[in-house]
């Protein structure tokens, strides 16, 4: 699907029920037509050529059984199920939790979007699907909220998720993406606003089929003493390009970013995060881990920017890659930009294979090498999952990740 076809698709999608919205979409459609996939920073998409991925996207009709949203409900969660970007399940009714459709929220001007990636204009031109979630102040939502998107039609969906956490609220949100093994692209944008003292856990799980493209951008703003815990998990899919922008706006704001990417065959995973420490006494922590096999590529770019006024910032970053084949490639680009002097910042990066010493340790204790390798690789990946603080979310994600680890890599089998 080339640029013209994408523009055509966006054009079809514009209805005239709301003039403001259709005007907004038309403006961005024009901008997309003009600018295409251009990007301000030439290095940001150095390893991922969006245009060539989009060009290679072929569309084919879905011929399987009809998908029923009921199959995707889970009683341990407040589930919201979308099929091809359209909300299908009834919205959960919970005290302190309110949902608004994107078109209504747009009409109320309750959010603003930003353009910071080569697909921003295209996404805005398709604006409509998705949901706005608001958590009332001083409310703790006990059950985690689960947003499931299932794609059955080939083409492009462009969901928008807005999360508004009012002061001193707390919630855990799990985003899941599945598809019926068809070629498609999900171009999503999420905006998270965390007011003073609010705590949000946000898990974004991409579990696409062989020909699925995923491009997601998450932009989070954290206020005074607020906490944001973001997990980007790329478990499968032809392309997973995930952007995270984290703005720590006030003192005491704390951000965490944990990433796990599992790639095999020709899969391509590219995670790019930027953490802006704009205020004094803000803190952040980041761990990104990748297990790479086959001909796959894993890219991690993590920037930490500390502004001059942001004194006493403590920030740590770690990237670890485990290469299982001699054709897999890992690219790691940790970046520190520091303009304040009283800070403690560190980053580390390692790339290698399972250590012989560690395998030997297991063997000396009677565990065969094959089993030892499986245990070590699973332990390597699960460290990220264990960063999820909500127990229900953690258990669910752990099951999914364990399954992916087992089926994806022939660990232990001698190569």
């Amino acid at each position: 699907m080339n640029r013209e076809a994408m523009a055509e698709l966006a054009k079809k999608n514009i209805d005239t029920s709301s003039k403001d919205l259709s005007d907004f979409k038309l403006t961005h459609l024009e901008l997309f037509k003009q600018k295409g996939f251009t990007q301000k920073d030439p290095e940001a998409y150095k390893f991922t050529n969006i245009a060539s991925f989009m060009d290679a996207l072929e569309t084919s009709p879905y011929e399987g059984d009809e998908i029923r949203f009921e199959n995707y409900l889970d009683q341990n969660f407040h589930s919201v199920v979308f099929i091809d970007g359209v909300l299908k399940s009834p919205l959960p009714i919970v005290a302190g939790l309110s949902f608004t459709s994107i078109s209504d929220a747009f009409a109320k001007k309750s959010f603003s979007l930003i353009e910071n990636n080569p697909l921003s204009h295209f996404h805005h031109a398709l604006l409509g699907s998705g949901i706005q979630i608001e958590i009332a102040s001083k409310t703790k939502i006990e059950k985690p909220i689960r947003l499931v998107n299932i794609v059955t039609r080939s083409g492009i969906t462009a969901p928008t998720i807005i999360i508004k956490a009012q002061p001193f609220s707390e919630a855990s949100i799990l985003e899941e993406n599945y598809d019926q093994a068809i070629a498609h692209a999900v171009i999503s944008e999420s905006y998270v606003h965390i007011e003073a003292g609010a705590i949000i856990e946000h898990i974004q799980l991409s579990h696409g089929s062989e020909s699925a493209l995923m491009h997601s951008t998450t932009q989070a703003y954290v206020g005074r003493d607020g906490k944001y815990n973001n997990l980007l998990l790329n478990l499968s899919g032809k392309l997973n390009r995930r952007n995270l922008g984290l703005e720590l706006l006030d003192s005491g704001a704390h951000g965490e970013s944990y990433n796990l990417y599992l790639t095999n065959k020709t899969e391509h995973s590219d995670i790019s995060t930027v953490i802006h420490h704009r205020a004094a006494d803000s803190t952040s922590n980041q761990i990104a881990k990748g297990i790479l096999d086959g001909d796959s590529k894993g890219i991690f770019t993590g920037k930490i920017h500390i502004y001059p006024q942001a004194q006493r910032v403590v920030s740590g970053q770690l990237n670890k890659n485990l290469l299982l084949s001699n054709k897999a490639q890992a690219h790691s680009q940790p970046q520190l930009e520091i303009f304040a002097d009283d800070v403690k910042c560190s980053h580390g990066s390692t790339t290698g294979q399972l250590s012989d010493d560690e395998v030997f340790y297991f063997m000396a204790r009677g565990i065969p090498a094959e089993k030892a390798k499986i245990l070590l690789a699973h332990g390597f990946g699960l460290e990220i999952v264990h960063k999820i603080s909500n127990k229900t979310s953690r258990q669910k994600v752990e099951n999914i990740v364990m399954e992916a680890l087992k089926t994806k890599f022939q660990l232990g089998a001698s190569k």
Partner: protein
Amino acid sequence: MKIEEKLATEYKYGFVTDIESEEFPKGLSEDIVRLISAKKNEPEWLLEYRLKSYRHWLTLEHPEWQYCKVPPINFQDIYFYSKPKSKKDVYKSLEDVDTELLETFEKLGIPLTEQKRLMGVAVDAVFDSVSVGTTHKEELEKVGVIFCSIQEAVEKHPELVKKYLGTIVPYSDNYYAALNGAVFSDGSFVYIPKGVKCPLDLSTYFRINAKESGQFERTLVIADEGSHVNYLEGCTAPQRDENQLHAAIVELVTLDNAEIKYSTVQNWYAGDKEGKGGIYNFVTKRGHCKGKNSKISWTQVEAGSAITWKYPSCVLIGEGSQGAFYSVALTNHHMQADTGTKMIHIGKNTKSTIISKGISAEKSQNVYRGLVKIMPSATGARNYSQCDSMLIGDQCAANTFPYIDVKNNTAVVEHEATTSKISADQIFYLQSRGFTAEKAVSLIVNGFCKDVFKTLPLEFSVEAVKLIEMKLENSVG
């Protein structure tokens, strides 16, 4: 605690030698390139090389990706060739060199005359565009070591120069490599024959003196099988209000089991407190470890230049070859530095080590940018990188941009970076034991840089410690 402006240290080497110089007209054109070549009696192939570089340079645009603000440079306003005027066209021996020049180098602490020579170090002194003299030549000739200016090497050993010149850093490499390829003037040429451990440390001292000129030297060091050499490089320039360009190329080659240790103490004039003047130091330095088990190490102490922009690199081709990069980059006032290294692993079991220490003070900006690339052929490659930054004052910046590309699963690559400031506890500890705050800071900074300083040859190590102390004198707050 605030000890600002306690002492006003000035740039020690900021004086100008009042010597008439012979300059070509300002600006750059094919004619100038031909003139430079003719002046040096160069063979046809070298002129061709210069012209190819020049034509390629014309097609290039100034790069924009660097993390430093480079004001537009007017290449038509620079003297590309400047030579101290003398009765002789070429300095055949030190007796031909004018006394003013010898005095200049003496003032810089580099005595060239027979009786005052440094023990154990052979020096090639380069003044603007020409080499004024090389010491200890006879002693080196005895063991077959060739140490002379590039111009002399082109005359006497054309086969060696032709074989290696431009093979490590081709003119098409980057903007300033192309410029240098077109207009390069003197630099040093070193050839260490098979199995020879060079009996002396070799050293080149660069001095820019002429106004509105640029220095574009070229250095080529070849270490044949089983040889070993220590090479040192130092540089200074007078204090001037306008910026001057220094765009050099250094090429190193090591064959089987050979080793080159290349050390630089860079102290070009860095501009005044307001950031006026200073040298733009845009240098391409690269070494090829061609032979098995060969080694190249770069050690640099970057304390000068208004803008430093260079990445001394190692391409590890031979099986078991090793590359190392040790760097201390200190910036103060309005200095900018975007420096680091590239380690390209191609051969099996290649190893590289990177240790980089950045110190930024006042309004300066210090960037570490480094690439570690493990190619699919580099089975068993190993890299360890560590880059630490220290900030002194709240208006400076320290940035780290490592790029790590691994394409072989047997490689082990590690990278670590930290940024911090000197803690009040550490200073208090030293103060309570009778050190002044300033002395305490200098002690802590020197300790921070120890890993790098200890890899320097003794004379340089002492100089480096003093240089860092001197530079920091005003910036402690």
